């Protein structure tokens, strides 16, 4: 190879290196920040290990061997330092490395090298000092002599103190501070404090010289000092929460507080509202249960302002809570407050959540009360229905399940006579898993023992505080447009089912109508039995139930009813419609045509008749009916209402073929029902006979029928219904 070629090769190599190095640096610096800090972290970790080894070497018999290691540490960390990525920990490691290298050099007599290291150390950290306790005085002196040649001193004070001092953008200390070691050189000194104008000075610090700066800071923002009664008041400035008053007034402020018209025992400490810009501000002082105070404050100058004491007035209301049924537990914003009916005084004004819970259901409402408002709230208890989730029977169903569920919940929230609550998944899973069941196992076809279904539903009801459940099923065999809703009352074993097309709102409306249909236990009643006949204009009275409103008004059989409330009666349904349009205790004006054409007018005051739920009515959701009936039983124990509800619960149980449950209900109803004409003990005994017959207890059934036959005036369906006695006589073998 000729010399020219060698030179050209070398030039090419140098050029290549020159291009590669910046490229490498550019590549490095172009690396994402996250990657760099990870690399830095890794490097720091490695260097730390190296320091440990080097320090051990330093302490060992061959101290000079540590110099090479310290060299490496310095080289590697200086790279980071030059890149500006050396963190504080890295600086400490580098400082330590410089010190120990310097001492190592010093100890082997290479004082210049030691001085170089010390100089580098001081340039890195001008305030660094070598410990006299650990290091030989000679080394310390040597270090100090090196340092003295490099550093000067700077002292800064400001008025007010507490300002941040930075040298060339790097933070140094807070004023006021004594002279601090600073590398000799030219500096721009920044003195900054919030609320004050930042001051800048240029200084030159010579080695060993001390520069002192005293700076008057010019205030740019104001402060206001607030004392409130009570303490704990939020101070909102221009719509932003700035601070909250706290503490108590110190002894020096007691007179001041009294002077402001406040009670020192209740007042807050003096609370600063700092950094107020000049101009006008809207101040709001807020505290729960107190009236918000609004003020406008003017800040013309940047100074401290003392405000007058601010006393917040109570903002309280009162609630009178009544529930139907009574005896429900009251929770106000989650806190137990007693049992209905209850008057609550001293309720903070504003928004609250009222929950009234009864074993038969609950009432939930969010209210807003104003100061001094007295709010009476009727809290009708509604049964609660927990939505347990959706079961998909096919992979296609699984795919659409989330969308279907969202639509279901959205539409089912509209139910009016129940509280509809999506059940917490974990709670439901926990209860089901404890019995090794799934949601599907609760549905028909799940092959689960009825007693187990009953047990689990009762457990779920207790855990969720609900009275019934809804599970949706996406059947496998149908096109995925239909969900089957299963509605199951707690403690029952057979659900009501209803198909909904989950994309059609009308489909849900029909279901909601069925759910919202409330079981009617009573209807208005006259006791007047008429029949239709083409012999008359009007309807002849066939009989009058003894003791009924019609009997009390003096209506006689064979009279012909011509008009009700002034409207002509052509058939019995006209009379029934007129009665249904009224309520118990209202009057009905009847006009009769006697046998000779003589007219007679009578007023009948309506009463109520209890009535039975039909045993099989496809339009009824019997599980929902049971939830309503249980509310009556649990809400009004010992009353006739509860007794008739229990009779109807027995009928619902018979609807499901659960004659054992029906038997249980009827045993209680039998003694709770009245013994008067109409629906009564005889009615319960008749149904008891039916239930016993279905359960296979023939002898006991006959006994029940015979007992029922003894109630000559007992009826079925309602107080006007067919007589129990002849039916029971026949069944009892009389």
């Amino acid at each position: 190879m000729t010399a020219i070629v060698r030179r050209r090769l070398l030039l090419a190599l140098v050029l290549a290196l020159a291009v590669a190095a910046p490229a490498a640096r550019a590549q490095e610096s172009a690396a994402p920040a996250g990657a760099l800090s990870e690399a830095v972290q890794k490097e720091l970790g490695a260097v730390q290990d190296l320091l440990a080894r080097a320090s051990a070497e330093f302490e060992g018999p061959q101290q000079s061997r540590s110099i090479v290691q310290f060299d490496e540490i310095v080289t590697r960390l200086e790279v980071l330092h030059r890149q500006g990525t050396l963190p504080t920990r890295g600086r400490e490691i580098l400082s330590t490395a410089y010190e120990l290298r310097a001492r190592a050099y010093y100890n082997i007599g290479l004082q210049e090298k030691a001085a170089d290291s010390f100089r580098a150390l001081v340039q890195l950290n001008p305030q660094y000092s070598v410990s006299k306790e650990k290091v030989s005085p000679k080394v310390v002196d040597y270090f100090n002599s090196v340092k003295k040649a490099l550093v000067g001193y700077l002292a800064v004070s400001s008025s007010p103190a507490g300002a941040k001092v930075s040298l060339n953008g790097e933070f140094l200390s807070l004023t006021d501070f004594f002279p601090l070691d600073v590398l000799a050189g030219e500096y721009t000194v920044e003195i900054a404090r919030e609320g004050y104008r930042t001051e800048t000075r240029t200084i030159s610090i010579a080695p060993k010289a001390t520069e002192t700066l005293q700076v008057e800071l010019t205030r740019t923002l104001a402060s206001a000092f607030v004392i409130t009664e009570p303490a704990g008041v939020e101070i909102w400035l221009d719509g932003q929460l700035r601070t909250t008053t706290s503490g108590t007034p110190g002894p020096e402020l007691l007179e001041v507080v009294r002077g402001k018209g406040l009670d020192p025992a209740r007042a807050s400490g003096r609370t600063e509202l700092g950094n107020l810009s000049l101009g006008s501000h809207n101040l709001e002082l807020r505290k729960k249960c107190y009236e918000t105070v609004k003020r406008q404050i003017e800040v013309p100058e940047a100074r401290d302002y003392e405000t007058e004491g601010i006393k917040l007035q109570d903002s309280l209301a009162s609630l009178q809570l009544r529930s139907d049924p009574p005896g429900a537990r009251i929770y106000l914003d989650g806190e137990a407050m007693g049992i209905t009916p209850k008057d609550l005084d001293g309720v903070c004004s504003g928004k609250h959540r009222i929950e009234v819970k009864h074993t038969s259901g609950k009432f939930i409402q969010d209210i807003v009360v104003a100061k001094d408002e007295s709010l009476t709230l009727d809290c009708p208890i509604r049964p609660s229905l927990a939505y347990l989730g959706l079961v998909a029977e096919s992979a296609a169903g699984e795919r659409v399940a989330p969308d279907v569920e969202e639509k279901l919940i959205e539409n089912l929230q509209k139910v009016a006579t129940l509280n509809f609550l999506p059940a917490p998944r974990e709670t439901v899973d926990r209860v089901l898993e404890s019995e090794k069941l799934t949601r599907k196992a609760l549905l028909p076809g799940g092959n689960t023992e009825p007693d187990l279904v009953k047990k689990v539903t009762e457990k779920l009801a207790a855990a969720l505080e609900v009275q019934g459940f809804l599970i949706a099923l996406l059947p496998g065999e149908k096109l995925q447009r239909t969900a089957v809703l299963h509605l199951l009352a707690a403690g029952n074993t057979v659900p009501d089912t209803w198909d909904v097309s989950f994309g059609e709102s009308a489909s849900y409306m029909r279901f909601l109508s069925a759910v919202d249909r409330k079981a009617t236990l009573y209807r208005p009643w006259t006791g007047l039995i008429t029949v239709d006949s083409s012999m008359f204009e009007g309807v002849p009275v066939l009989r009058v139930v003894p003791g009924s409103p019609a009997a009390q008004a003096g209506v006689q059989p064979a009279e012909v009813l011509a008009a009700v409330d002034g409207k002509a009666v052509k058939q019995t349904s006209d009379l029934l419609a007129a009665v249904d349009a009224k309520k118990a205790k209202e009057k009905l004006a009847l006009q009769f045509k006697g046998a000779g054409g003589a007219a007679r007018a009578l007023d009948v005051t309506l009463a109520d008749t209890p009535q039975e739920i039909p045993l099989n009515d496809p339009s009824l959701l019997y599980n929902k009916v049971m939830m309503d009936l249980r509310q009556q039983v649990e809400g009004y124990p010992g009353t006739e209402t509860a007794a008739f509800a229990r009779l109807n619960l027995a009928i619902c149980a018979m609807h499901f073929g659960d004659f054992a449950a029906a038997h249980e209900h009827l045993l209680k109803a039998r003694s709770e029902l009245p013994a008067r004409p109409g629906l009564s003990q005889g009615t319960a005994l008749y149904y008891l006979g039916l239930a016993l017959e279905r359960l296979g207890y023939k002898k006991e059934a006959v006994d029940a029928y015979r007992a029922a036959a003894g109630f000559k005036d007992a009826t079925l369906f309602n107080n006007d219904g067919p007589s129990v006695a002849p039916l029971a006589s026949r069944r009892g073998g009389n």
Partner: protein
Amino acid sequence: MILRRTLLLVLLLPSLAAAQNSPEDQARGLLEDGRTYRKDGKLKQALDNFQTIVSGFPNTSFVDDALLEIGRYYLEVDRDVAKARDAFEQVTKRFPQSDGAPGAYYYLGRLTMERAAAPADIDDALAQFARVQRLYPRSEWVPRALYASGLAHRKSGRLAEAAEASRRVALEHPSSDAAPAAQFELAQDLALSGEFRQAMEEFQQVRNRYPESEWAPLALDRITALYRLYGAGKPAFALDAAFSVGAGDTLKDVRGILMTPARTLWVASDKVKSAIPFAPDGKMGPGLAGEDLQSMTLAANGDLLVTAARAVRLGPKNLQTFAIPGGKPGETEPLEKLEAAAMTPSGSVLVADEKKKKVFRFDAKLQYQAPFPDAKERQVSRIVLDGEGGIVLLDRDERTVHVVDEAGKPLRTIATRGPGYELRKPVDVAVDGFRNIYVADEEAGVLVFSPTGALLTTLGTADVRKARAVTVDPAGAILVYDDKQQRILRFK
């Protein structure tokens, strides 16, 4: 190339087939279409569909439904009992767990009940109905079977059991399609048991609870009829002065009048030699001509029987003469002095001959059977069915009314005289829906008797000068032809 095409077709066919409906879907479609055809009256097409399911899709889940529909067709349309029975039995034997099985048992019970000739047949029918309730307790056929049990009990005369069964339908299945009919039948059972007030209440329940059903207007008629007789103590009938039907010769020499359930009034006038129908609005319809007309009755299936001296018109097109065996073997003797005729629920025809002084029974094929109810001579001038299995015979000479069952067993008798009445010259008899008997007596007017033979009321000669024929409308109003006034009078 051809082979390639063939192969391609073979490969395509399975996917084509898969793209079409499955056998289940096809069978379902045929069933639904068949039912639509049936509803629209296209019965033959319906039958074709159902038979296609049985023969073409024998492994689908719709065969039982199809067989049930085929059975119904044979029962209700063709009236082929044997074929109907065969179809139903196929369901019960081959598909005992299917949805169609309870329906098949129900229809088998109905077949047996409607053709029952002996108490054992009724028991068989009841067993079929009980099977539906026992084996398929949640089936929609249970209320229908219970209702049919009620009808079976009533046919046996067991009114209490009939009422019980009907009551169960009303109580336990108030929304079923059988409920309105069951409620009606319950009321009817009570009325027949003599519990008139309760019957009226139960008829009223038909109107209150099922106002749109076909039973509601029928219930109104029943209530009116009952109330007229039992509602206000004494039965009350007053002349309906506004009533007028017919005119001129149609009201001369009237031999009989008959009101049908649809309220058509037939007037048999020997003057015009026709039985003429008058619609409820009074409009006259086309008559049935006949020489020497004697009387009219309604058969159990609603057909009109018009008796003339030599023949009986069985329905609009069937004119029948009758003969009995003569003195010698192979000889027959025509009956030429017929006075009355009736067709029983089992299809037998009873004819009363004045000359022979007997009533003769002919079977459903009009083959002579025997004298009825026995061989004793009696001058029966009227034969009427009471709608509950009873056959009412008016003996003109003895001046009595006998009620017998289809076997000839005596059930009740209205004697010539009794408390408050005497039959002097009874000429006609009618029965209402509650087995009350109305006797037209030329010399006494019209006498109304309860089923037990107690006199309920009389329309005396002050009201009816010469009662010659009597009938009752569905609401219990009495129509009587007064020969003296030559008018049909209505008492409501």
